């Protein structure tokens, strides 16, 4: 795909911005934010999430970041698109702002409170069903971490969305393999995720969650499928910052020495 370079550059900017914000705040969830950054860039800059044609600065479609600890990954994008006022992003960590580590509905472009795992899919299904019953062509994207698949409510939501043929609901699983205590397959096996979700009645794709050709192609197929669909995106926790990549402890922020900070910034250039 010829415009891949455009998305890659957007993703570099998003990663740098979110990293620098966490440096400023000295807190945050870098591992998860960096793992889903490419997915978020593809969703918004690929116009899968559409702006409201009748209300500039507002989104027409919904995005629920069910893995609420990574919501901050959206802020640089929403700010760039004019959904979040630029000043709110600038102020974060310096002055009064609407922005928080976890998303809430006071923040423009954030469509649900999240933070506790396992709620996003059900809320997204509610939005999607309501839109369908209004006869509206509005899309609902929900970004789920694989760690959430341990929550039973996710599987309740899958049952429901499949039964009601919610073809305007798009599930994206950020499969970075790591939960707090280590690899999911060692801690408590989740695989085969794709087959399990297929068995629930979803058209399920998988892709490299850091390859824009694959991400954009998969999202395009999902939109055109007109059936409940799910993308299992294989990602790397902490992607883009080598000292954080595949390191469970970088789920949370840790203080960095000046030398470490310089190394991280070098990776993000």
């Amino acid at each position, binding site marked *: 795909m010829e415009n891949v370079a455009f998305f890659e550059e957007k993703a570099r900017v998003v990663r740098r911005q979110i990293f620098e914000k966490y440096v400023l705040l000295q807190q945050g969830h870098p591992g998860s934010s960096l793992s889903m950054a490419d997915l978020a860039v593809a969703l918004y800059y690929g116009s899968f999430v559409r702006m409201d044609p009748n209300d500039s600065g507002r989104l027409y479609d919904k995005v629920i970041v069910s893995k609420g600890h990574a919501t901050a990954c959206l802020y640089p994008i929403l700010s760039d698109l004019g959904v979040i006022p630029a000043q709110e992003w600038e102020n974060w960590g310096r002055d009064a702002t609407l922005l928080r580590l976890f998303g809430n509905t006071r923040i423009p472009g954030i469509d*649900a*409170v999240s933070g506790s795992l396992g709620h996003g899919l*059900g*809320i997204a299904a*509610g939005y*999607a069903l309501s839109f369908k*019953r209004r006869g509206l062509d509005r899309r609902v994207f929900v970004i789920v971490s694989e760690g959430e698949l341990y929550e039973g*409510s996710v599987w309740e939501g899958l*049952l*429901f969305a499949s039964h009601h043929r919610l073809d305007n609901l798009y599930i994206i699983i950020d499969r970075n393999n790591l939960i707090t205590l280590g690899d999911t397959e060692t801690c408590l096996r989740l695989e085969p995720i794709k087959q399990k979700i297929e068995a629930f009645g979803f058209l399920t794709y998988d892709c490299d969650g850091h390859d824009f050709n694959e991400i954009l192609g998969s999202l395009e197929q999902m939109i055109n499928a007109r059936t409940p669909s799910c993308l299992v995106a294989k990602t790397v926790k902490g992607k883009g910052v080598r000292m954080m990549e595949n390191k469970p402890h970088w789920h949370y922020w840790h203080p960095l020495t000046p030398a470490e900070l310089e190394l991280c910034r070098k990776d993000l250039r």
Partner: protein
Amino acid sequence: MKHQRDAFITELFDRAKGNKDIFLLSADFGAPALDQFREQLPEQFIHCGISEQNMVDLAAGLALDGRQVFCYAMAPFVSLRCLEQHKCATGIMNLPVCTLVAGVGLGYADAGPTHYATEDLACLRAIINSHVLTASDAEVARLLAIDAIERPRFSFVRLDRQPSADLLPVAKIDDVRRGLRIMREGKRLAVVTHGFMLGRTLEAIGQDLFDGVAVIDLVQVKPIPSELLDHISRCDAILTIEEQTPSGGLGAAVLEAMVDGAVVKPFYRLTLPEQYFFDNGGRAKLLELAHLSPQHIAEKINAILAAAPA
């Protein structure tokens, strides 16, 4: 004799016919009135499967798109099993979702403690933004439906499982709006109760016995109606009666309100014991074991009145 659930859902059905934004969700819990709703308003009814957690998350999504949502399921499961959904999905966002908690207290008598909702009041009133209401007869349930539709808010309406006759004086919409109904006037003792225990209390008191005993049907436990303190301040003592465990229920709520309002009076309460019951014999037998039968209530009132003669 009428079922509270049918009274509520029939009223909801009548109003939903003219309002396509009213949705009724069920976690596979039925009622004759619900059958009418789902047959005639299928676009406004959602069967959620036996998935209370997803039902509440789903309700949040619907409400975020401007729907007025009613969730309906068996009391023990729609209260405690999805308590975190009530907090994180509907409570934090303060969404207009009304949950019908059907079969509170020991209503599922011989089913045993998995089916009792005897901690639900404490749990639901602990959630920030919640409004917690209890029906003591079918007419109150019907009026609560009207009120819930007219005042969309994050609420729980606790319904009894058993059909019952409407208690006198018949409830009026203002009783529900202000959160309490005065059943009897009196100055010596204010008995504050609601739900199934209101009928048992009135049975214990009888027609004209216990002169000076006021009985208040506390329809709304959270927030406590400010008017409640006005009433109980005029009485010499207060007794609360509930079909809940001792921690955090109606008695605790009234006592908290008294402390906050600096109302200092002798205070007594009757609750279920800190114990799970596995006994057969029906609800009356269980209440007998729990010292909550009409006879026990009468004895308690007698003892309080004897301790403070008029």
